[in-house]
């Protein structure tokens, strides 16, 4: 009797499996896995990212991973090279005519994916749209542009509202990819968003939301078609362990944001390894300098800085995935100050002395607010800090906040003594990092204000001379390193898992640019 039951069961199971397997022929192509033909393996690059891009409106997002996808299709006028130095891309050359005018000569013979030629009209169309439409998320970074004058087919004058020393930095980042004016005007935005074209090395093929984005190489690319890859596929895999498993099984060639717990797994696996590069994001504690808070006393802030051993944070919590710093302007950024990089203050005795001098010989109680799951090992780092501060008598009450609550705490100025934050800088211009010391920005928040910094900020904002401007930005960092409105901890590293068939080193801007990935 039981045998009958068992055979019935098995029969039913086989029936279901056969029914399912008939799908294979019809849907076989749709899978994301690259375990098909050898040709596919050689010429199709698959990159796993944690979240989907937001859409093809290059002006209406400020998302690094979206930019990472976009830049395969849309070229900038300028681009940073591997040394983070700005080089002309679609621009041929540029000249600063006066404080508010930059003349840019464009490359000739550049084609959009539909065959149209790229001209000065496209530059005007692109930049004026983002500069003049306040509802676009990138508007704040481009409203400094007053207008773009078309001098001739291949020359434009970019006129800014006021002197704008960072203009070239702005033209080399997200929001400044060049759009096809004629194509968009003829077909409308909706059509463009569904069928985007640009001048970039790859053409759009398909976007299945939250699943994959597929590009194929553009044979008429002005720098010559990228030989390495016939197609580039971004697969969206939000779960860290799934992304790593895909890398280990060869389902993807590159996996971003590999968490420290999986580093050994990636390195220990045959055929994959972990690649690291210092990112442009630094992690720091933001302190209240408002009267009434112990942290309003600079000696207390210095004591906190001396009590935290940044090197231990990076070595233990991050397993080496960070570089201790005393500033947020890292190498490759305009105005970088080398003496404040790869170094930290740590001296427990000095910290205790400073606390005693400030009138807190037995320490005090404070609250540290920390996001959880936003930055690499953020919760572990906060917990270590609590332990370190307890050694000098500072009892820290740690408050973990889920990211949306954390953001709300910040925007509503509900911050307490200190909170942990990480900031990147897509401009690669130190001016944007030091602008955080601007007193106006800190009203009712940290209430930090320093007259010398204010003066230097005002000067550097309109200074078109790069040499003196860099010095001003460096000077601001040195003052802040003493006055400590923020306590810098470390610069995070980017952790990317890479298949050994590919030669790729991540870049500090967190971009995943297929033309930079070579077959070994």
């Amino acid at each position, binding site marked *: *009797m*039981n045998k*009958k*039951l068992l055979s019935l*069961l098995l029969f*039913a*199971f086989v029936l*279901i499996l056969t029914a*399912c*397997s008939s*799908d*294979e022929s019809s*849907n*076989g192509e*749709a*899978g*994301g*896995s690259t*375990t098909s033909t050898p040709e596919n393996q050689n010429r199709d690059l698959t990159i796993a990212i944690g*979240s989907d891009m*937001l*859409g093809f*409106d290059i002006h*209406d997002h*400020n998302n690094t991973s979206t930019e990472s996808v976009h830049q395969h299709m849309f070229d900038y006028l300028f681009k940073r090279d591997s040394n983070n130095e700005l080089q002309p891309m679609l621009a041929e050359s540029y000249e600063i005519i006066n404080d508010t005018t930059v003349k840019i000569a464009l490359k000739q013979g550049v084609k959009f994916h539909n065959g149209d030629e790229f001209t000065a009209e496209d530059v005007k169309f692109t930049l004026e749209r983002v500069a003049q439409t*306040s*509802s676009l*998320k990138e*508007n*704040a970074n481009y409203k400094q542009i007053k207008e773009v004058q078309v001098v001739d087919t291949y020359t434009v004058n970019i006129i800014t509202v006021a002197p704008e020393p960072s203009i070239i930095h702005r033209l080399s980042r997200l929001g400044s990819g060049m759009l096809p004016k004629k194509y968009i005007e003829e077909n409308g935005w909706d059509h463009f968003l569904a069928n985007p074209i640009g001048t970039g090395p790859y053409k759009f093929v398909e976007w*299945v*939301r*939250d*699943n*994959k984005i597929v590009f194929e190489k553009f044979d008429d690319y002005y720098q010559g078609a990228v030989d390495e890859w016939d197609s580039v596929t971004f*697969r*969206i*895999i*939000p*779960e860290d*362990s*799934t992304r790593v*498993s*895909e890398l*280990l*099984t060869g*389902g993807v060639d590159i996996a971003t944001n590999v968490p420290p717990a999986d580093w050994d797994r990636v390195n220990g696996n045959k055929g994959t390894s972990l690649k690291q590069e210092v990112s442009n994001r630094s992690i720091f504690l933001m302190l209240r300098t408002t009267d009434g808070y112990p942290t309003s006393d600079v000696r207390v802030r210095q004591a906190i800085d001396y009590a935290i051993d940044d090197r231990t944070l990076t070595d233990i919590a991050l397993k080496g995935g960070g570089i201790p710093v005393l500033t947020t302007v890292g190498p490759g950024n305009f105005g970088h100050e080398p003496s404040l990089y790869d170094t930290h203050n740590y001296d427990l005795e000095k910290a205790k002395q400073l606390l005693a001098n400030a009138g807190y010989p037995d320490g005090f109680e404070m609250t540290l607010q920390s996001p959880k799951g936003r930055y690499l090992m953020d919760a572990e780092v906060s917990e270590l800090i609590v332990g370190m501060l307890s050694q000098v008598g500072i009892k820290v009450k740690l408050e973990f906040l889920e*990211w*949306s*609550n954390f*953001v*709300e705490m*910040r*925007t509503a100025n509900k911050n307490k003594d200190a909170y942990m*934050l*990480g*900031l*990147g800088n897509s401009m690669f211009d130190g001016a*944007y990092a030091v602008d*955080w010391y601007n007193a106006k920005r800190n009203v009712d928040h940290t209430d930090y204000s320093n007259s010398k910094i204010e003066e230097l900020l005002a000067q550097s904002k309109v200074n078109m001379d790069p040499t003196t401007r860099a010095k001003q930005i460096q000077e601001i960092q040195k003052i802040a390193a003493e006055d400590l409105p923020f306590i810098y901890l470390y610069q995070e590293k980017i952790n990317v898992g890479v298949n050994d068939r590919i030669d790729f080193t991540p870049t500090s801007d967190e971009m995943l640019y297929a033309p930079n990935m070579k077959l070994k």
Partner: protein
Amino acid sequence: MLKFIAKKMLEIIPVLLIISFIVFTLVFVAGDPVALMLPEDASQEDINNLREALGLNDPFIVQYGNYMLGVLQGDFGDSFRYNTAALPLVLERLPATLELAAASMVIAILIAIPFGIWSATKRNSVIDLFVTGTSVVAKAMPNFWLGIMLILIFSVTLGMFPVSGYGTWQHLILPAVTLGTGIGAEMTRLVRSNMVDILNQDYVRTAKSKGINRFFVVYKHAFRNSLIPVITITALQVSTLVGGALITETIFSWPGLGQLLIQAVNTRDMAIVQASVFVIAILVIVMNLVADMLYRVLDPRIKY
């Protein structure tokens, strides 16, 4: 029956109204999406501008009124994140979720019916203990843990199935097993207890005493009758599956409604959250209705 269906349909309207109000209020109270949409270094001015542009400075009642006016015309507003209408986005995801739900249900039934019957017919034996014990464990296993374990075993170690993705039947197996196991375990216990009850009924005993083949007794007499509550529960579980696929879809990067909803909640993408909950609510209501009707069809003694 028609009167019953019509009555049920009319009941849907107030239910949906209440749901929409609750979801709107919860999302409203949950906080401000604008700060999440802008980068960390956004200024207060940028935040205010965007909030104004999105109409978020209006009072609650104005925002709710505008929202309901749209809903009545089938417009659930635009997703903040994707800048596109929310409802089509949600509907676009529905087939993938339904596909996963259906496959999970098949797996759940494949587990539940044979094991439930087997266990019931061997009541109080080692087999019974094993099946009931395993089903308790299976029910208790969290989906994310089971999913990751299945990936490690069947994809990474054995290489039998792709780790994640969507499109072929191979992609479907692991997420369906993950989602179907817990439900299958629960249904196993239900099938078992129903069967035990029925096997003790007089008519079964009579059939047995008449010397009728045991297999025939179990399948012809007992099994069919024990199916009624099982089918009802199955219909109800389908709706649970649709809503409950959240974690499984994220683990296997299955591009369904669950993954969309999780991301929308994380980024406070109100329109998506509202449209998703609305669609899930309709599914639940419809499945309840189907369950009620099936019950009626299977057991003619039930009157409405």
